[in-house]
């Protein structure tokens, strides 16, 4: 059996939203799935998230937002990652995201949106599928 590289994930809270139950549950759940997960804490600007991505070189950046500012914040993170040459990193999102906003996000570089009620297993499987891991 090949020793596979451990999948590395950053879970980040862009913007000013303080609701981080979901971010923490996903952080802890993906760790249970054997991944290395860093949780940034609250109030991260897109610049801060891009900087952390450059430093940590994760496979995935997971963004959580429940304030309604996701369209701006998520796509801004994607832009900042591209600008820093990190456009290959998989970006996924979650939080209070109305269904009608999902197409906009997926057209702008967010690979998938996991809304309330998603299971951590599904998120883990999605990540593994994307990475062929």
């Amino acid at each position, binding site marked *: 059996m090949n020793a596979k590289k451990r999948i590395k994930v950053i879970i980040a809270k862009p913007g*000013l*939203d303080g609701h981080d*139950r979901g971010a923490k*549950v996903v952080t802890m759940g993906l760790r249970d799935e054997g991944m290395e997960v860093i949780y940034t*804490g*609250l*109030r991260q600007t897109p610049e801060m998230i891009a900087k952390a991505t450059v430093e940590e070189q994760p496979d995935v950046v997971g963004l959580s937002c429940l304030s309604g*500012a996701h369209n701006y914040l998520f796509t801004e993170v994607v832009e900042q990652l591209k600008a820093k040459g990190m456009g290959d990193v998989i970006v996924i999102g979650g939080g*209070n995201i109305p269904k009608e906003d999902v197409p906009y996000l997926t057209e702008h570089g967010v690979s998938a949106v996991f809304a309330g*009620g998603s299971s951590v297993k599904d998120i883990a499987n999605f990540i593994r599928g994307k990475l062929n891991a």
Partner: protein
Amino acid sequence: MSKNFNQDSLKDIKRRREEWEKGTLKQALDRFKITKSPNEFYTPFDIADFDFADKVGFPGEYPFTAGAYASSVPGSGPVTGGYHIGGGGGLVRAGRYSGYGTAEDTRDYYTREIARGRKGGPNVAFDLPTQVGLDSDDPQAKGEVGRTGVAFDTLADFEVLYEPFKGDTDLDKIASNWTINAPTIVILAAYVALAEQRGLDLTKLKGTLQNDILKEYIARGTYIFPPKPSLRLFRDCLVYCNEKLPSLNPISISGYHMREAGASRVQALAFTLSNAISYVQVGVDAGLDVDSFIGRFTFNTLGGSMEVLKEICARRASRRMWAKIVKEKFHAKNQKSWTLREAGGFITGAWNCTTQRPMNNLTRAVIGGFSGALAGYIPSAEPPYDEPLGLGWSIEAQQLAEDAAKILHYEAKLTEVQDPLAGSYYFEATTDQIEKEAWELINKVEAMGGSVGAIDNGFMQRALAESAHEYQKKLEKGEEIVVGVNAFNGPQEIEVLPNRAIPYPYDAGKRAKAEEIQVAKLNGIRKKRDNRLVKKTLQAVEEAAADEKVNILPATIEAVKAYASIGEICNVLRKTLGEYSAFGSI
């Protein structure tokens, strides 16, 4: 000691229970091929020490298990005026939590609501930049202005927001609610400045500030300064209100944010009361007489879950525990001081609402309101069923939530009996058990130096994250079931989408433009105002902040009157009080 049951009959019950377990129950379990019964059954043996006066008492009297008030149901007489479309005849006093966009947008929304018959003052939702003390043009505020609530930068925004409240509904005749915590002093200062501008008597001002900063570090996240200096700001508010605004509630202590963030029932109960103890201690340390202020402490709902049998017990326990704390620990003398004043009519919690088949949230809310009534509150079937679909509720969902509460009250007559479950073997035993566990946790927090210690060392934050994680694991294993989410969601089930026939109450177009307009407005004010006066008043705020003994509010009021912005005032305070950076709690 007079107990309900004599020893002989208890022995008999114990013997008969054992016989039942070995006989009737075992036969039933064998038939289903299971070893442990999925049902509990309680007997007098479970409350062998039950004493009515000690455990229950009369409604509105110590220890308040039977209810916070002797008689608490408003509007129980004949309803006149026929059909109250849109909530004119609501059961609860506080206006619906609302606000979006610019002050002008929310003003227009309030005006429409008043035209539809809504009474009373506003229950103001602020946007996140306001809640964390940033101006609308701060780079960190980008994308967030006017989203979760109305934007507030300067006194000019309050002047506009309160335009619909004049004459018969002037500030001295209505009660406002403000969901504001870290920068409470700025919002309070703006309200005082507005009332003075209108020449009103400050002692007549009514309202409730949320001002519960401790739970922000634990659960809600809109902190600015570290816990200790934040409690100093709380002290300044409390002392100022005590002197100048005797009709204003200086705090609304919240448990439900912790519950929403993952806290277990006992954690939320214990941490809420630990936080409340810290706030009372602040008042005592400031030299205030306990009875002069505790009566104006309010509790936002404690939150809950769908396990309503246990939630009812937790509410009964909460009233009894608060009464004990206030009477025995702080030696308050007035009965009113011992009362846990809480809007607790719904006890299932918004975190149980689902985006899948969202109409089911109405069923959940009705269960919450039903149980809330049995737990001693005026029922309310909150939140409206479309809560998880996006910010702001539809008018239809609001109508149905209000109707449900009225059906529970007027048709089902659930409030006809106070504490109807008192004396039940199960409810009394479980109320005792929850109380016992909560005291143990409160004592643990006390040993860490109270809430501030248990926040500084990350204990409370970790406890919530671990509980949330445990719950998620149970969901994924199917040990906890949420209908339509992790079960009963197969192809044979159909999606039921609510039909929003009446236009969405918040104008999405206005909300999208709010940031640009708000920033332009703020820039206009910065050009127009007397900037020398702003500088001088901000200097005075900084000096007041630097001296821990000084009350910061008078200087803040002067700065607000000079149209200093919330960001400018908070920046001065950040310099002197420091900034909180979140503990790496997981």
